Each structure stands twice: as C-alpha cells, then as structure tokens.
C-alpha cells in the first residue's frame, strides 16, 4: 500500500522527522480557510499516488489565502494525465498546502529492503529532487549505501557515515543522523517496504526538512496497525486492483492485458507460465489471474466472471496443477460456476492435473467437459478457439 504524501508526513511527524508547516484539505475553500496570513508564500500540492505531479502542473505556489483557493481549485479540476498503468489518470481529491521553504540544497534519503543481503538498506545521495533512477545512471558513485544488521539496529554513526560518504552539505550534518533514525524507526514500527524522502532540503535558515514523503507499507503487516485500514479506504486502487479486490482476490492476483485468451491458473508461477504458453502458441493473453489456494465454486465463478466481464477474452484457458488445491474441488467449482453464472459464456479449455486428479476428471466428464492433457496443448487449443 502506497501512502499519499500527507499521510507519509503524518508518520514523519510521529518519528520526529521535520516536515514543513502545512495542512491537508479536501476542498479549495477549506484550503483557503486554513491558510494563515503569517506565511508569505504557500505551495499547493495535489495528493495523488501517480508520479510526475510537477510536470503535470499539479504543484503550484500561492501568496494569499484567496490565491490558495484558486490554485487548489485549478489543481483539483482535472485528473492527473493518464499513463500506461493508469489509463484514466487519477482524480485529485485533495491537496497539501505547505509553507514555501527557502531551499538551498536538495538531497535524497531512503530505506528499502535488499533481497540479496536480506537487510534494510539506507541510501543517501547529494542529488535530491530528481528521479533516483536517473541519479543512479548519471552519478552512481554519489549514492552512499549502508546495509543495516537488524540484530543491532540503527545507531547514529550510520547516519554520520552516510552523510560524509555522500558528501552532503555540512549544513545537513547535525540533523541528519536523527532523521535517518526516524525513517529506520518508522520502517520497523509500521512495517514499511520503502520510505523515501526526496528531496530532503536544507533551507537558507539552516533547517533540514522532508519536503516530500513516499511510503510503501507492507500489505501483509497492515493488520498490526488498525488505523491503516481507514487510511487504505481513502486511497485510490488502480482499476485492476479494485476489480481483484471485488472478486475476493489479492490485489496482486489479477492484471489485464490486451489479448483475447483469458487465463486462470493456480499459483503465480504457473499463472505466469500459462501466459508464456499462450504467447508461445502464437496467441495473446487477456490477463494474469492466480486463483490462489482452495479454489471453491464461488471463487472459480468470481474469477470466471472477472475475466469475461472485464477483458476481451474470447476463450478461457483454465490451467490447474493440484498441490494444496485439490482437482476435485476445482472441477466442482468450474461446473457450478458455469451453471450459475449470468455472465456471457466463452469456450473453456481446461487442464487439470495433480492432487485428486481422477475425481476431478470424473466430475468434469459427468458435466460433459473434456480436459486437455498438457499446458502446451491447452494453450494451443485456446489460441485456436480465439482466432
């Protein structure tokens, strides 16, 4: 779960990471109301999960409460421009209004999980305010890294070493170790997969502040902090995630693509291999769908309907290899799903093998369905039917 900037900054505040004075508002009038006249200039930022706010004109300055209102109005009037993952863009439902800082330097600071060392890695660069992938291409030597031994945890020397190694401006030094300590604490306290401050700014009056906040929480750890359930409800899902959730699947279990061969498989690995098989047979897959373990009738029906109602599938290739999932249950699910669904019917190609295979095949046979023998055969047949 990715947090909005204002939510990330709320967490930053809890860990003592300095953030600019500001407030979150869901309506232009409210934004104006909260703007106090003692701040000479405000920055108004669209609260969206999509990147590229600046280029999209969704970050603007304002010099008075009236100005704040009109700028907020303008920002919220149109959605973010679409991209491949978000073909409809993203609606701007709120803005964050903050004092404009007198910035003299911008740095980058983040913590993430490194798969190879199995450790949290803290990354720091003196090049802030730009895409970190770009920095890692242009100035790879500028990114200082520290792989933290979780048995020891964070200690301030780590922040000091990183600041020296990344050659941050000396103005950062005093505040920096505590800020890194803050993101490390948040990382563990809330089960984050990524916390990124970009830019971490140094102001002309010597303050060090998180000007932006990017926080990705581990969905599997959300239960530890019940408040995140409420936060989650305010966040936009992309359409695929929303559809998967409606069908009772994990948000990562379903993705749509452009082809006409619908796929349902059990296990992410097999689901990916199923897509590969369709491609290898000369066809185009309409989706990725991992039905998960325990595929009962309701679940199979939901998956079937999800694919036929929301993709361009002209045929459905169901590819099950039973381990935890038992073939008889899946077969029952398929038969029941097809009998009870009110959605459009498409030709089915079924491949069913593994645990309780015999019983499963019998159930299908009783319903006059004949499964294919192999994944390749199934893919070929499905592609043929879709042509």
């Amino acid at each position, binding site marked *: 779960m990715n947090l909005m900037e204002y939510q990330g900054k709320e967490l930053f505040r809890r860990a003592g990471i300095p953030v600019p004075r500001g407030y979150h508002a869901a309506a232009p009038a409210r934004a104006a109301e909260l703007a106090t006249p003692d701040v000479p200039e405000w920055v108004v930022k669209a609260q969206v999960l999509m990147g590229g706010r600046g280029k999209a004109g969704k970050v603007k300055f304002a010099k008075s409460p009236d100005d704040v209102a009109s700028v907020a109005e303008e920002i919220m009037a149109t959605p973010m421009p679409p991209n491949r993952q978000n073909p409809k863009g993203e609606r701007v439902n709120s803005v964050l209004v903050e004092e404009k800082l007198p910035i003299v330097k911008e740095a980058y600071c983040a913590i993430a999980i490194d798969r190879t060392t*199995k450790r949290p890695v803290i990354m720091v660069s003196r090049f802030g305010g730009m895409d970190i992938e770009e920095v890692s291409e242009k100035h790879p030597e500028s990114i200082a890294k520290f792989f933290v031994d979780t048995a020891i945890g964070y200690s301030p020397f780590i922040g000091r070493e990183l600041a020296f190694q990344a050659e941050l401006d000396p103005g950062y030094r005093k505040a920096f170790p505590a800020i890194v300590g803050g993101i490390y604490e948040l990382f563990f306290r809330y089960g984050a997969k990524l916390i990124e401050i970009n830019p971490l700014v140094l102001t002309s009056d010597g303050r060090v502040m998180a000007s932006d906040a990017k926080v990705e929480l581990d969905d*599997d750890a959300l239960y530890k902090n019940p408040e995140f359930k409420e936060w989650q409800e305010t966040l936009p899902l992309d359409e695929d995630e929303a559809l998967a959730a409606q069908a009772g699947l994990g948000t990562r279990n379903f993705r749509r693509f452009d082809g006409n061969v619908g796929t349902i498989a059990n296990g992410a690995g097999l689901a*990916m*291999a199923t897509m590969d098989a369709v491609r290898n047979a000369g066809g185009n897959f309409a989706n990725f769908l991992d039905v998960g373990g325990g595929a009962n009738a309701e679940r199979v029906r939901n998956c079937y309907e999800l694919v036929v109602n929301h993709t361009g599938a002209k045929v459905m290739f169901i590819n099950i290899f039973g381990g935890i999932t038992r073939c008889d249950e899946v077969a029952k699910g398929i038969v029941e799903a097809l009998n009870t669904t009110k959605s459009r019917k498409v030709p089915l190609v079924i491949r069913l093998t593994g645990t309780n295979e015999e019983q499963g095949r019998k159930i299908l046979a009783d319903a006059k369905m004949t499964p294919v023998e192999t994944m390749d055969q199934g893919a070929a047949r499905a592609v043929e039917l879709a042509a």
Partner: protein
Amino acid sequence: MSIFLDKNTKVIVQGITGSEGSYHTSRMLEYGTKIAGGVTPGKGGQKTEHGLPVFDTVRDAVDATGATHTCIFVPPPFAADALFEAHDAGITFAVCITEGIPVHDVLRVVATTPGMRIIGPNCPGLISPGKSLIGIMPGHVFKEGSVGLVSRSGTLTYEVVDLLTRAGYGQSTCVGIGGDPIIGTTFVDCLREFANDSQTEALVLCGEIGGSDEEDAAAFIREHMPGMPIVAFIGGMNAPPGKSLGHAGAIISGAFGTAQSKIAAFEAAGVPVADRPSAIPGLLAQRVPATV
C-alpha cells in the same frame, strides 16, 4: 543420498491440529515421512487424529522425539514466533509453508536464527522422492532419480516435475524455495548442497522475474559447478516490466531481475534456458540420458 532430508529425517509439525496442518500431516505420513509429533500449545499430552503425540512447546517435542526438522503451518501473525521457538529449541531445519508473513518479521527471523536452515516462507516445501516429503507437494507426481530441482514457484514445480517424470527423469531432491522478496534459502544455498550430493547428477532451476537470485546462481555455477548438466527456466518472460504479478518477489527493478538479465547470466554460465516448461526434458536429454 539426497539433500536436506532423507528417509530417517524426524519431523515435527507446528500447527498440527489446524485444518491445513492436519490435512498435510496425513499426506506426509502417507508418503512415508517420519513425523514424530506435533505442537499445539495447550494440547500437550493429547493425540492427533493420526495418532501422533501433541506437545505444548517445540522444546518438549524435541526433547521427547529427537526431531531435527519442523514443518510450520501456523497463521501469518504467529509464524515468526513459531520459527523463533523452533530455533530456540534446537531445530536445525524449518520449512515454513505460511503465506503472507510481514516481510519485517521474515527479516528479523533470518537475521537472528543462525544454525537453522529455513525453507520459505510461502513455499511448497521439499521432497526427496521415495524417501521423505516435508510440505504440501503432491508426492505422487515425483519419482526417485538423479535430477535435483530448485524452484521459486509451487505449482510450476509440479508442472516441471511431472514433465521430467514422464520423460524418464526421476528426482533426487526438489526444493520449492518460495517467491517472497526475503527467503531463508536461496538458489545458491541449494546449489552448494547439490554440488556435494552423490545422488544428484543433473539439475533443473526454475526461476522467475525479479530479484537477482538467478544471476547469483549463474555466477555460482560458473565458478563451482562447471561439470554439472543444468537446465533453467524463467517464469514470467512475457510479463511487462513494472508490474507485480502475484509473487511479491516478482517485481522487476532496474537491469537486474528482468527475464533477459537472467537468461543472459545463465547462458554465460553454459546453462541453457528453456523457452517453456515442456522444453526442459529435451534440453536435459542433450546433456544427460533419461532414466538416470
């Protein structure tokens, strides 16, 4: 021989009285796995439906049975605790089936349980066909032989094994290491064991997009296993970049982690990469005869 487990391996099951734990205990017993008992706090002294003793703590179970291996079926919020308990009680090998454990819990466990090998979490377990099975793999698909297999996926593993078995390639040990970003045992960890296993004469590696485990494995093979016939497969070759498909680990980041990067690394190590699972037996046949 085989790696990690053989017919004498004594196993306990944590969460044995839960529905999954109980069901798969039956399957493991059927397969011949030496299950010495199980652990469910508060049910110590009782017997399971399989007639196995239940213990209150892993320590009690280990003291009473001498088990060295554990298979963990407890729900995600309690899985790290189960692993810590196993480690503290002297268990040296833990298979963690549980899916959805917070990644920070896994980080903490792998960093602080030296001396205990962990397979998984979120994995189907492992099997030395004809000898023993720990986990949730469908035993009947496998056949004893001399091909070792390591895979990040569950169902894809069964698929590949089924193809191998049908083509006459039995297996020494098949390990499903799991597809999460942080796992206890990597490809390289398994390769190190296979390299010293007399039963294993060839290997199949089933990788996946995301991470750099496959690249690390290729480097290891290049340096330490030049003589071993090995075939690889990479799942998700047609997945578009920037999308996460099911496995949390399968997120492509930078140059590393793409199917292209992994294929290039394997090929540089002299390991052919199958373009589909069904091509694996054929590639293997070019390097080692079937029915080995």
